[in-house]
């Protein structure tokens, strides 16, 4: 049971699966920029087609790809209503208390909802086609230039790597503590708000104490292995982008440029 959770990732062997995670993340950012800058309704039609193509390429079942957006129906409704009622108060049809619905608002609401939908499905395709570990690595890689403005990116990367390494251990340990306290008669729920807080203490306090103990031991082990926060260590080498990564990047960049110019 001591397993690192895989999030939404589903193993596969498609072109999209095989792209470098950092390249994929960059592609996503480019596509997001393009989507946000799309104004014409026809543009959104094009996007839906492109998205269908992408899902096809990634060989992800459409149901999986759309799953993240499907559960958010009420959320889209909310976006629509908010924009409908508040976006353009000066062109309102009627005015009820603070609500001032307008057709410009309706259009804007549809636009925002479409954007959010596209963003969600696109990021979902990324998460379904890339292992979480590779994605974390991609974040590290893309953020590593921040070291030039004095951000300790290597330290941050080390912290992330240690954090991931601890996830399965702590998951198992937390589950063990929950069971141990249940066996001792702990009940983690209570109707009263103040008591509710205290009810989870038998779980939370030991989890933190155990986790901090582990941190203590690991930091000692790291020092024993020669770690020093104050010196530069050899930097992690990332594999260079391959031809297909560059191709994907240039396609996305082209899309971004086109959509931003045409709007």
């Amino acid at each position: 049971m001591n397993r690192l959770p895989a999030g939404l990732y589903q193993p596969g062997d498609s072109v999209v699966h095989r792209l470098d995670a950092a390249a994929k993340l960059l592609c996503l950012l480019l596509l997001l920029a393009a989507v946000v800058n799309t104004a014409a309704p026809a543009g959104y039609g094009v996007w839906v087609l492109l998205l269908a193509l992408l899902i096809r390429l990634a060989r992800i079942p459409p149901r999986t790809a759309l799953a993240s957006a499907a559960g958010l129906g009420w959320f889209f409704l909310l976006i629509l209503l908010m924009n409908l009622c508040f976006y353009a108060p000066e062109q309102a049809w009627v005015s009820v208390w603070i609500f001032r619905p307008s057709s410009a608002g309706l259009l804007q609401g549809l636009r925002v909802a479409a954007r959010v939908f596209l963003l969600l499905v696109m990021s979902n395709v990324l998460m379904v086609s890339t292992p979480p570990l590779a994605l974390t690595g991609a974040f590290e890689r893309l953020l590593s230039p921040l070291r030039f403005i004095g951000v300790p990116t290597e330290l941050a990367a080390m912290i992330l790597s240690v954090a991931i390494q601890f996830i399965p251990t702590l998951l198992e340990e937390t589950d063990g503590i929950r069971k141990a306290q249940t066996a001792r008669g702990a009940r983690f729920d209570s109707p009263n708000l103040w008591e509710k807080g205290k009810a989870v203490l038998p779980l939370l306090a030991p989890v933190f104490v155990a986790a901090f103990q582990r941190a203590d031991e690991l930091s000692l082990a790291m020092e024993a292995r020669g770690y020093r926060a104050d010196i530069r260590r050899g930097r992690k080498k990332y594999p260079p982008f391959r031809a297909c990564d560059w191709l994907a990047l240039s396609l996305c960049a082209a899309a971004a440029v086109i959509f931003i110019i045409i709007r």
Partner: protein
Amino acid sequence: MSVELRNVSCVYAPGTPYETRAVTELSLTIRDGEFAGVMGKTGCGKSTMIQLIAGLMRPSGGQILLDGQDINGKNFDRDGLRRRVGVVFQFPEIQLFETTVKRDVAFGLRHFGWTEEEKESSVREALERMGFSYEAVKDKSPLGFSGGEKRRLAVAGVLAARPELLILDEPLAGLDPLGREALLTLLGELNRDGTTILMVSHDADTLAEYADRIILLKDGRLFRDGPAAEVFADYDALKDNGIGVCRVREAAEALRRRGWEIPAGTVRYGQLLDEIAGRWRQ
């Protein structure tokens, strides 16, 4: 308290790629007042079995009966189960969290409807059983003690409820010889006073010495079940199936190979010594 497993199966994460059968069609009975040792390789289903008996997990099939009552049945008293069955998990010291030893040891007693005096006397008894002076430790923080002491405090927290069935998962791991000795003596005493004990351990010598019987699991199924003398009789065949080193048995076996007539069921140290002394005098 008697325990009966009837055809119990347990599957983790059913229907996912990670589906694992932890326990398969397990049937066994532990009699009231018995001291049973549970052995098996890591991942053989020992932990799942004790969690099922303690009612911390639901089986996917079969029944678990405590004193003849199905613990997953509709009318079963779950709160009573928590009181009557005590579980000492592996490295139980991490479960300590209260501000004082007294509060921590009394934690399990909150829902029993006991009076303050009853609680206090139970806490006092549990702490003294574990070798602490009640007055000296009751107001201290349980988190400030040393590793071995914390282990004893955690066990006291389980004993305070006066369980009829005590389940222990590797209670000796990490203890030094003095700590082991003290804990084992206590378990022996509790067992004599009528507590049924179910102890998971890799330590074959210890279980041979203390347990009335050994339950050996393999791949989630019952593999061997009987007194240590019987189960360890085909020691060499079992070595790769999760029986740890039993030195007494190894010594006896070595002497048998040399032509000594020592019974194959020699698994306790005293037994071995008697046999050797007996043979030597001849």
